[in-house]
């Protein structure tokens, strides 16, 4: 009854052609949900997943097949059907980015949260999945703060932005010069803009392309002939042209550095073949990174992220353990026993505080026990007659029977 199931169609087994046909919205799941059932759907570019409780998995496969037009057998072949703790563990891994194509990426958490909001609005989630998702968010947050998994950028644009911050500190006062109007330069420029770069200047041999990119980035297009002038005034250069020979030579930079009074310049050359002569990196106060050096840094970061995975998995296991304990307690008899234990602890506290002799203590204990049991008689009877998960959970929350619930309130 309390088992969560999951059908996952993801990048590990399913092709992109198949994945792009599958998109299960919360409204679709609402159609097949019965009483006391719940579901959660997640659709991203790398995965389509449905988490459910109280629903027949065959019905879910049928729904996916019906909506996508793909035969049920084909879906079963490329999907994973997980049940119980396996499904919850998978959810935790997905939310923390451990199951992603780029291990440890953080975008997935935002997507999980967005789709959770949509599912809440559609009213298809319930007590169990709400709790599982909140635990998933907590696991993801812990992994991000307690491990170094997100510390190492794994995209060239992010690494370039990080290096710029190490040189200039606050890049909000920096001017960025983009040479070439290709996609790669645009991506790196956007990353620097998101970090607050002050001004963007775009230079391209075809001036109209420079104007287009300038509009997109809210930058200033300049003619190619003004390259030297712009090099003298900018702080960060991103070069990505299709030129067959270098357009920035050591002589150019040495002349520019004199004009700049040796103010530091950071050059990212992501063009192949290279736009900047390798000797430029030897110029005083000039920091040059080409595509190979940036890629080797990023590759090192990939392996460092993998090293952090075992730490992250250990966090997931502790969160999973805590979730399973909560599920075990989600039982009417356990809840009633926990409630009576709470009453006994209150009685004991009162007796310990008051300076009474043995006879008086016994009398007080008896009186307190009778009163308190009478007080909880109605909720206990109700719980026995209606042992639904929602009622049990409400009782546990009302009387704060779970340790972590109380801890959360103390914080």
């Amino acid at each position, binding site marked *: 009854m309390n088992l969560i199931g999951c059908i996952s169609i993801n990048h590990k087994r399913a092709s992109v052609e198949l994945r792009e046909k599958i998109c299960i919205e919360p409204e679709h799941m609402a159609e097949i949900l019965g009483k006391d059932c719940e579901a959660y759907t997640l659709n991203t570019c790398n995965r389509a997943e449905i988490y459910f409780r109280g629903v027949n998995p065959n019905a879910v496969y049928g729904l996916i097949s019906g909506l996508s037009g793909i035969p049920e057998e084909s879906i079963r072949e490329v999907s994973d059907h997980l049940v119980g703790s396996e499904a919850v563990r998978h959810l935790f891994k997905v939310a923390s980015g451990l199951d992603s194509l780029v291990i440890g990426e953080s975008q997935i958490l935002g997507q999980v949260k967005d789709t959770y909001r949509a599912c809440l609005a559609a009213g298809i989630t319930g007590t169990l999945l709400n709790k599982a998702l909140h635990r998933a968010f907590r696991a993801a947050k812990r992994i991000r703060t307690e491990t170094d998994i997100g510390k190492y950028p794994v995209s060239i644009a992010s690494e370039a932005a990080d*290096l710029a911050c*190490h*040189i200039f*500190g606050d890049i909000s006062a920096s001017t960025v010069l983009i040479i070439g109007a290709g996609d790669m330069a645009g991506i790196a420029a956007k990353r620097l803009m998101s970090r607050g770069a002050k001004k963007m200047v775009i230079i391209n041999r075809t001036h109209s392309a420079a104007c287009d990119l300038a509009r997109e980035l809210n930058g200033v297009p300049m003619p190619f002939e003004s390259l030297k002038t712009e090099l003298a005034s900018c702080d960060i250069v991103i070069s990505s042209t299709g030129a067959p020979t270098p357009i920035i030579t050591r002589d150019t930079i040495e002349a520019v550095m004199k004009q*700049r009074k*040796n103010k*530091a310049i950071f050059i990212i050359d992501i063009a192949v073949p290279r736009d900047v002569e390798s000797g430029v990196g030897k110029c005083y106060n000039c920091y040059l990174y080409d595509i190979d050096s940036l890629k080797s840094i990023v590759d090192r970061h990939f392996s460092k992220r993998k090293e952090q995975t075992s730490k992250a998995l250990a966090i997931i296991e502790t969160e999973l353990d805590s979730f399973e304990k909560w599920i075990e307690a989600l039982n009417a008899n356990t809840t009633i026993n926990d409630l009576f234990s709470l009453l006994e602890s209150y009685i004991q506290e009162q007796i310990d505080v008051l300076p009474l002799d043995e006879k008086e203590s016994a009398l007080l204990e008896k009186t307190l026990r009778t009163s308190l049991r009478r007080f909880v008689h109605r909720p206990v009877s109700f719980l026995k007659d209606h042992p639904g998960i929602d009622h049990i959970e409400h009782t546990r929350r009302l009387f704060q029977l779970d340790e972590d619930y109380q801890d959360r309130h103390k914080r």
Partner: protein
Amino acid sequence: MLISGVLILYFMTCIGFIGYLFTRNRQIVIAARILFILSVTAHLVFTIALSVKIHHLPVSSPPQAVNMMVLLASVVFTFLIWKKLTTVLAAFFLPVATFSLGFIAPSVGHNPGLFVESSKYWYPLHTLSVITGEAFFIVAFITSVVYLIHERVIKRGAIHNIASSLPPLAVLDRILYTCLSSGFIAITIGMMLGALWASSLDLEYAHIAPKILSGILTWFVFAFSVHQRFAIGWRGRRTAVITVIGFLVMIIGFISINLAYPHAHGIGLIP
């Protein structure tokens, strides 16, 4: 007794900031900052107590000059540790400060004597100016070392380990420039006051020559760095390298002159 307490506090602060450098833990840095304030306060109290005990500003012997230099440099770091970007600089300064204090602790309380009447006013003005300049030089030296380490790390692209705690190069360059300029002004004033003081005393040239040489050497290093910055636009690595070399020259000069001429710091004292 008090100097031992100061030393213990400096040592604990040193451990705290090194711990922060490796862990970047918020609680550790809060504790280290509090310890730093306590250390500087205790150091100040010790210096005032010493001053009261010997009846003049405690800079009349090499250990006392080092003590004052460390105290003034610590005061400069008191401002730097409150900024998130520059906090870790203390992790590089404190081992130097603790070692220097430990080295001079046994002899810092020794009183070389009282000053003649005519030196009573010149002496604190001259020495404080020069030592302030030298304290700025210590800060510049520490900043230069961190700059050279960080620049090397950036060139290698390994910025996500301990290096992620280091201040950005631009920030280090600004601190370096500020320290060199301030130090240059202080040491120039100090040298001018020293010249005026020397002329008021009936001294043989040979007696003060080592001190003049040491002073001019230090002044030239400052002057060269500041000139290269303004006139030629030296920044970053070159300024850092010249500062490290200049600091080593200053230290070697300070030690060798005090070893060769033990009375060089006793100018103006009652014979």
